[in-house]
């Protein structure tokens, strides 16, 4: 087990700066997720932890020891790749045993540890198969066993679930989380899937273009996003972002106006989660243009003077037909206000759009 620390870590590929300078501490035994869109530097960070890439600057510490130049083979890091990267010509047994070959583990002990790792992830009965004879989920388990057999101080998971079908993904999510809790190994999950991150990790590190946008619990990121990017990235269906303008203590959004004190003039973005909105007799006038039943919920897309607005209603009954003229009301305590120049959220800025606006 290990405590991981990034101290001003920088990574360049020739002239391309992928990570300009990253500070991060991951505590011993913690399960964190690096979350962000592709190209945000999350996989690069993971590869630096594994020792596959070397940092261009800064210090990478494992338990206070600098490991910048330590070779991958000397790090004792277990890694599960998106493609699982099982050795195609080896049986499941040989795949799981492979890391022990280089550790001078006595034969009897190696056999015992391979068996234990295989039992841990429930592939003990597949030992003599080759990867091509396994299903995606089984390959995933073998990859996990191979990563765990050497008793790693750090477990890295690179998009481990993205090649599984939806049902299996759910199962593996639960299993990996349970396994991590049981073993207590420091684990870093890299994913672009917010659901994976929010369901599995204790803490989420949301990244964008090589920089950390926000670190926090799943709740923090969802309810209290610090930036417009995090607000837009977290949440499915995505948050409604409306553009407005503050002018002498009044916020204008389309034709609606609301008093807003304590902020300077300029463009602002308003974030409204679809589930915090509801159709009713008061509020912004709107016309339903699309309905998307999602099982327990229905997603409506409505056209309003403020732009397109998504509204999520619980229940499986479609209550509003396409073309229906209605109004959308919302709870002012659940609105998020972002300064457009910086993309940062204004803490505690709530407002109430007046409801006199009329469709043009």
């Amino acid at each position: 087990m290990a405590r991981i620390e990034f101290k001003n870590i920088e990574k360049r590929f020739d002239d391309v700066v992928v990570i300009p300078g990253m500070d991060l501490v991951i505590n011993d035994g913690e399960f964190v997720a690096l979350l962000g869109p592709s190209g945000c530097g999350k996989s690069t960070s993971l590869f630096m932890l594994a020792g596959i890439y070397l940092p261009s600057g800064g210090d990478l510490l494992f338990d206070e020891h600098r490991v910048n130049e330590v070779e991958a083979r000397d790090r004792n890091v277990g890694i599960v790749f998106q493609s699982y990267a099982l050795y195609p010509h080896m049986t499941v047994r040989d795949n799981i045993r492979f890391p022990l070959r280089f550790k001078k583990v006595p034969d009897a002990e190696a056999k015992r540890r391979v068996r234990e790792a295989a039992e841990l992830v429930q592939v003990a009965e597949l030992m003599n198969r080759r990867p091509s004879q396994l299903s995606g989920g089984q390959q995933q388990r073998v990859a996990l066993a191979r990563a765990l057999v050497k008793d790693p101080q750090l477990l890295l998971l690179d998009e481990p679930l993205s090649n599984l079908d939806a049902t299996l993904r759910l199962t593996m999510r639960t299993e990996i989380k349970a396994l991590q809790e049981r073993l207590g190994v420091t684990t870093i999950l890299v994913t672009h899937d917010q659901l994976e991150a929010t369901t599995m990790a204790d803490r989420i590190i949301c990244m964008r273009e090589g920089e950390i946008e926000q670190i926090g619990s799943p709740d923090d990121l969802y309810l209290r996003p610090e930036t417009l990017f995090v607000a837009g990235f977290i949440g499915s269906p995505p948050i409604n972002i409306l553009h407005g303008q503050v002018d002498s203590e009044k916020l204008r959004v389309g034709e609606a106006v609301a008093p807003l004190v304590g902020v300077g003039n300029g463009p602002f973005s308003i974030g409204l989660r679809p589930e915090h909105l509801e159709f009713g007799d008061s509020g912004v006038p709107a016309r339903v243009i699309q309905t998307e039943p999602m099982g327990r919920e229905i997603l409506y897309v409505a056209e309003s003077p403020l732009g397109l607005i998504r509204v999520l209603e619980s229940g499986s009954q479609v209550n509003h037909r396409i073309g229906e003229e209605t109004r959308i009301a919302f709870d002012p305590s659940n609105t998020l206000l972002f300064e457009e120049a910086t993309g940062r959220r204004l803490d505690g800025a709530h407002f109430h759009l007046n409801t006199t606006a009329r469709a043009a």
Partner: protein
Amino acid sequence: MRNRQITNYIVFLGPAGVIVLLFFVMPVLVDIGIAFTDMGRDLQVTKFTLRNFERAFTGDSRLPKVISLTFIYVFFTLAIFNVTFGLVLALTTTAIPKGGGFFRSVWLMPRMSPSVVYIVLWIWAVHGGEASLVNQIAMNVFGVEKPLDLLSNTPVMLIILSNGFIGASFGMIILTSAIRGIPDHLFYAAKADGAGSLSIVRHIVMPALRWPLTYITIWQTLSLLVSFEYIILLTGGGPFQDTTVYALYVYRRTFQSGQYAYGAALALFLIIPGILIAISAWRFTNMQQLLQRPRIEVQ
């Protein structure tokens, strides 16, 4: 619909079929036919006979030496250059981060240059006079007193070297692309699992090269067995008959001595193993699978 299918077969496969028939199947049939005649320099056939085969099995005292030389030539050219050195070139040029392409191009040059030019360079390098490259180095650097005459003294080594320098690039190209075809993640995984460079070569790279290596060995065996272009240019098969490999011997018998029927019979011995090796390769090494899809799968 059925007619359309037949038309498609004829239109798309017809031209290739005609070529295969004219240039691959027909010559074999003609060769088999001639082997059972007494065709000589005048190209006249007067009777059908088994005399050519009798002669090959009992009456040709030079044949055993030619055959054993051919084995030595093919075996060492393959073992040292076409497979082993090709593999070393592929491994080293893919392992270095930059400049691998340059080294590979250098090794492609012998193959790209016209055979006469290539052999002229060899003769210039190894001829018995004091001006040859080898002798200038041997005499000026190593203090050898008399010029070496490699063409007379070690001709077999020279034909192996000159063919090997060309043959290595074939294996190099195929193996390089096979190594490139191994997903990066396998290398990363092996590194994270604690494997060093040699272990990665042994456990990750070599298993992936099993099929290409089999293919190269078979292909190059067949091609070395039947080609004598560089040998005839470099040594002319001599001195005496020292570098006359089987294919060259057949050529000399047929076209220089005008023993067409006997040459055809000798060539038959080359055609039969060729076909057998090709078929058994197809059968036993699962060539079909090799040709159809890569053994390494990327998801």
